[in-house]
């Protein structure tokens, strides 16, 4: 019954989404304004029903109800409960239902909380949100029903991809989806504002928290995904420019640009057309990202099963939403009035530079990701675009971007001059010079990008704290702290990336028991190999005794795991974090002479990459809290008046 109840809730929610769209369209045309107040409650109920439907699917997974096809195909009664739970969205149908649920709940939240924009603009926004929802409801109900029964029921399930049996999986997809769906709200606001010709500061303030939420979760999702690939794949790299990684990076780049331009629109009422364009692009990128992952048209480590029918369905949705929004933009944007003006050297100018650089990087990643697809479509040739292209094309722009990031926050709105800006940054500029000298003397011969990366990370790190200089720290608003921490996080992550690529040490050995290998400042001795068993896997575990210089030895235990259901092998790298970096040890296969492949890496300061990512997200969170508090304060003041 539970499966049927879930399906019923989904159908009802879909029907309400249609109603929500009709109310919006009818209410906004032909003077039927009386219909408009109904749209908020409909959106709320629709959100509740999708959430109910998803909760019931979770129940089915936790209960291991093998009479449901999806559960039988993707779960197993012997699996730990956390993975049963996470298994709900570790498959195509479940993850699409999760997407729709977040979409519905976001729509409900807009309906309940939004008080700032005009009633008609809000109605158009909710109608746009419903229009997006309808496509996904149709997708779920007609081609990916998660509640389909299996008759007769299976005796037990067929497991879950063991690569995905990791606590990280419980959080990674939902995190990215909240990010993607948050973009859909920003997009709906943009569409609503375009339709109602209401692009202005109020629209920007309504949209900003959603952009922030979305951006925080995208940042967390990318950071976590990068760490997952780093330790689970056992290749020692933290970013592979893999198509699926790029699919998550592109919305982040667009969202970062949008976040900055929406601030200009909210504070200064400038960059109107540009902000609307970015909102459309950011949502397009999240949809394209979902499509690339879900359709399997790009081969990658993350690729899910290829199903042309589903791929075509999502592609059709893309055509309707993105094509429609871009056409609407092209037709309507000329009616958007010019915003306020500013000079090139000003905070707006720096933010425009930020936007252009981010857009250029986005373009580079977009072209690099899709170029192989284009070439194959035209000539049938196969090729892949790898790190050399991305690093050399996007790297210099990214470094330029952090320089702009250092300068922007200390510039004045509307007009400023370069000389005082440099004076305000005297200390960071000095630090950059010192770092330059130090790196040249201490680490000669490292590559140009890592070299500039290290030097700029130090200068930019110092500059990002500069906005707090000579300010009353207790009266500084929370969102300013947010900006400072986020910018500092970028510098920290940059330092980690640059150090990793400049000083990474790698050793590949075939070792017998008792052999010792060296990597960086460590000596690693293979003491023993023992078989061990987990709940649904067996593993070979190496006992490695690691000594740094003359310090006390410690034991690390990397594993090579074999899952029985389905049969798959994974590596569990052993990691040891030190203050100045991370030791990363992987156990490989044995040869026939009793030697074991060991891959040993010493990665100085590599953990800074993810620490920086978390700081960026934390900065976003503080900014969000700060903005919401300020909004609530003005709202209360207006209510009293």
């Amino acid at each position, binding site marked *: 019954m539970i499966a049927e109840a879930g399906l019923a809730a989904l159908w009802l929610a879909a029907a309400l989404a249609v109603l929500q769209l009709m109310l919006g369209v009818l209410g906004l045309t032909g003077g039927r304004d009386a219909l408009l107040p109904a749209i908020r409650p409909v959106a709320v109920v629709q959100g509740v029903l999708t959430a109910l439907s998803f909760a019931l699917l979770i129940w089915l997974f936790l209960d291991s109800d093998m009479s449901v096809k999806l559960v039988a195909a993707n779960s197993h009664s012997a699996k730990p409960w956390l993975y049963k739970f996470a298994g709900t969205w570790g498959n195509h149908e479940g993850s699409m239902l999760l997407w729709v649920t977040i979409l519905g709940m976001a729509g409900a939240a807009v309906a309940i909380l939004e008080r700032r924009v005009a009633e008609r603009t809000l109605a158009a926004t909710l109608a746009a949100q419903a229009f997006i929802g309808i496509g996904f409801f149709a997708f779920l109900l007609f081609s990916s029903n998660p509640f389909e029964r299996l008759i007769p029921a299976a005796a037990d399930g067929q497991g879950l991809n063991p690569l995905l049996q990791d606590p990280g999986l419980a959080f990674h997809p939902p995190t990215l989806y909240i990010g993607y769906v948050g973009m859909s709200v920003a997009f709906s606001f943009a569409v609503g504002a375009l339709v109602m010709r209401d692009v202005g500061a109020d629209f920007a303030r309504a949209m900003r928290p959603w952009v922030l939420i979305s951006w925080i979760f995208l940042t967390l999702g990318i950071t976590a995904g990068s760490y997952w690939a780093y330790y689970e794949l056992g290749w020692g790299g933290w970013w592979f420019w893999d198509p699926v990684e790029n699919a998550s990076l592109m919305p982040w780049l667009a969202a970062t640009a949008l976040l900055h331009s929406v601030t200009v629109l909210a504070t200064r009422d*400038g*960059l*109107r*057309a*540009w902000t609307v*364009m970015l909102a*459309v*692009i950011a949502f*397009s990128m999240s949809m*394209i990202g979902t*499509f690339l992952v879900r*359709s399997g*048209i790009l*081969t990658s480590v993350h690729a899910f099963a*290829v199903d*042309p029918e589903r*791929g*075509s369905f999502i*592609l059709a949705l*893309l*055509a309707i939403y*993105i*094509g429609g929004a*871009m*056409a609407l*933009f*092209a037709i309507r*944007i*000329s009616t*958007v009035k*010019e*915003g*306020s*003006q*500013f*000079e*090139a050297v000003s905070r*707006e*100018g720096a933010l*425009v530079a930020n936007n252009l650089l981010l857009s250029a990087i986005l373009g580079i990643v977009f072209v690099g990701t*899709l170029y192989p*697809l*284009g070439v*194959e*479509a035209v000539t*049938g*040739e*196969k*090729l*892949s675009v790898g790190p050399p292209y991305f690093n050399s094309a996007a790297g210099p722009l990214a470094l330029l971007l952090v320089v702009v990031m250092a300068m922007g926050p200390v510039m004045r709105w509307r007009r400023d001059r370069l000389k005082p800006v440099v004076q305000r940054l005297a200390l960071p500029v000095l630090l950059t010079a010192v770092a330059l000298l130090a790196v040249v003397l201490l680490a000669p011969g490292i590559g140009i990008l890592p070299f500039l990366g290290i030097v700029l990370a130090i200068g930019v790190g110092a500059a990002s704290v500069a906005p707090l200089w000579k300010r009353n720290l207790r009266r500084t608003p929370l969102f300013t702290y947010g900006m400072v921490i986020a910018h500092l996080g970028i510098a920290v992550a940059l330092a980690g990336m640059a150090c990793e690529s400049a000083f990474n040490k790698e050793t*590949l050995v*075939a070792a017998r028991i008792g052999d010792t290998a060296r990597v960086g400042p460590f000596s690693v001795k293979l003491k023993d190999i023992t078989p061990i068993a987990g709940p649904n896997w067996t593993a070979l575990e190496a006992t490695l005794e690691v000594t740094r210089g003359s310090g006390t030895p410690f034991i690390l235990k990397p594993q090579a795991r074999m899952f029985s259901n389905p049969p798959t092998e994974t590596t569990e790298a052993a990691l040891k974090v030190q203050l100045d970096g991370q030791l990363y040890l992987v156990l490989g*296969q044995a*040869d*026939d002479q009793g030697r074991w*492949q060991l891959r040993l890496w010493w990665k100085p300061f590599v953990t800074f990459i993810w620490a920086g990512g978390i700081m960026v997200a934390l900065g976003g969170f503080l900014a969000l809290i700060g903005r919401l508090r300020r909004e609530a304060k003005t709202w209360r003041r207006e209510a009293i008046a």
Partner: protein
Amino acid sequence: MSAPSETGRTAKPWVLWVPLTLFVLFFAMAAVKLVWPGNTNIDSQMIGKPLPRMLLPPGVAGRAPFQTGAAPDGKPRLLNVFASWCIPCIAEAPVLMEMKRQGIKIDAVAIRDRPEDVATFLGRWGDPYERIGSDVDASLQLAIGSSGVPETFVIDGKGVIRLQHIGDIRPEDMADIVKALEDAR
């Protein structure tokens, strides 16, 4: 100096349609790929092109180094990409030995390897090679478009790549490779 603050003011009307045009392009590509998924083997782009100029140090102490370019005897030969740490290379070894017995000249490139390990490997599994180069950073491997070990290339007398065989050579693959060598004459 005033900045172009608003795209709406400075942009020409056609600029507004650029995003949509780009999206239509993307749509067409994705649709093509969905309709014709194609196969997923990655063939070298270097087939029909000469080996890039490169001189590799000997893969085993005391052996001839490996130099690309025209073959010493002007006849087609094989280039085997292998490594002592590679398990399928062991499976392939007897097949290569059989080809050597038939008079086929085979050169080799050892990928990311150490001379002493290569010597042990050859001592144990047989040494079918005429020349062995040591490719410590896989630069030759990348240059000839090989994506893994083992792989075997048919090189004609002028040093042009004629065929790429991905994975270990099974006994049943021998006929194809011998034929490619004949064709390369």
